[in-house]
């Protein structure tokens, strides 16, 4: 955690929200750089899911639609999907996750990234939540 990140504390836990990223209502983060979108799940999401034992990723080259489930994450406790933030083509997936899916627990904003997508159209950043807005959402949800 760096000094400028946001730490949300609730009665159930503490969650890091990184600045410089955008967030979704379904607890993913995205980073847009050189017109490539990197997708991952948030610290809050990995803490709710608990220890992840299995990740199912799309094939590179797959065409995906915005809002479509593209990754399945399975923890000791439950199963969750991650959704594509945009329409486009899957450029790369994090193959490290096949052998060490718990990288998502250990480093959700770094080594635990999921997929990189080349969007069909430039990403409309206004459709996503800012770090502050996402922090507020968690605070509201968990009190």
């Amino acid at each position: 955690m760096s000094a400028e990140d946001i730490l949300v504390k609730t009665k159930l836990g503490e969650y890091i929200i990184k600045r410089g990223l955008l967030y979704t209502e379904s607890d993913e983060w995205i980073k847009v750089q050189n017109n490539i979108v990197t997708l991952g799940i948030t610290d809050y999401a990995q803490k709710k899911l608990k220890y992840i034992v299995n990740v199912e990723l799309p094939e590179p080259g797959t065409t995906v639609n915005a809002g479509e489930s593209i990754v399945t994450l399975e923890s000791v406790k439950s199963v969750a999907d991650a959704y594509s933030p945009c329409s486009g083509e899957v450029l790369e997936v994090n193959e490290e996750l096949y052998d060490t899916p718990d990288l998502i627990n250990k480093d959700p904003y770094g080594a635990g990234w999921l997929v990189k997508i080349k969007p069909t159209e430039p990403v409309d950043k206004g459709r996503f939540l800012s770090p502050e807005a996402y922090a507020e959402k968690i605070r509201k949800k968990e009190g």
Partner: protein
Amino acid sequence: MLKTTRETPLLKTLRKYGASIGEFAGWITAMDYGNPLEEHIATRNSVTVFDVSHMGRYLIRGDNLFEFFQKLVTKDLSKFKEGRMSGPVLLLNEDARIIDDIMLYYLSDTEWLAVVNAPNIEKDRAWILKWAKKWGYNITVEDITLSTTLIAIQGPHAPEILESLGVNEAKNLSILEFLRNPSVLGEEAILISRSGWTGEEVRSYGYEIMTTVKNGERVFEAAVEAGAKPAGLIARDSLRLEMGYPLIGVDIGNNTNPIEARYWMALSLKKEGFLGEEALRRIYEEGVRRFRVAFKLKKGVRRIPRHGNSILINNRIVGRVTSGAYSPTLGRSIGMGYIEATHLYIGFKVAVDIRGKSYEAKILDFPLI
């Protein structure tokens, strides 16, 4: 219905050791401490410490406790005596459906203790009082759940942890035996028993310490300092699944009877005069349509079977999964469920549908390890 959440009295202590907090049966408690698979393995190979204070605890007092419980529960208590636990015993309704599986502790002729499942703390208490009233027994039930703690120390190295807690005399307890008012870390605890629900209580060593909140905090910390790895409810779940122990509300409950659940360790059919007996004998005679079984998937299958998944033979549904987990001991996914009595292919293959994909599974008896 009003939903209330309670916190384990040890929550602050658990947090100190990096507990990942979650909710189970209305309780806020530790799900894991970072890696539940390692916690599972440490329980089997070394020793772990669990806070299980979310389990309900009652002190039950009255003049005819033996007579009353002999009528209320499935298991024959005629050999039950002071300093011993009996259980799991079942509370059945008149239709022989399962209300709960509980543990009884014989403190004295006029005082027993019961440990019940977290979702049923209020329900069981009301059930006990209802039948006491109906049958004319003068019995009181004091709920001591929130004012006490229950800590389980499980695994082959558990005796060493007891030594460091200063309760050497407890090391030689036999299974389901307990010591009353032992001195733990120099303070008087309620009891220490040779028990648990991980399987290690029978495979190697398992102890449970019931004590005050203050002493519980010290016991948990001292156990960790002495080398017990903190473990949470996720590891507890995969451990009990390997043993084939059912979970109330998930694998058994008011839609199941103990015969189809094959809950033999909680039954004594020789016994007469208990609640649900008539229905139970009728079921026993007429037979059942399904049985609870265990199963394992092939190595390399990463998906975990979940409650509600179908068990199939040539695309025909012949059963349902009730619980599943990844078994670190076997290195594969395992599960528990009910299969039609006509297809009780123990040792043979079926398929389990997990999220639309079919996986080969081998039907097995309990335990899986």
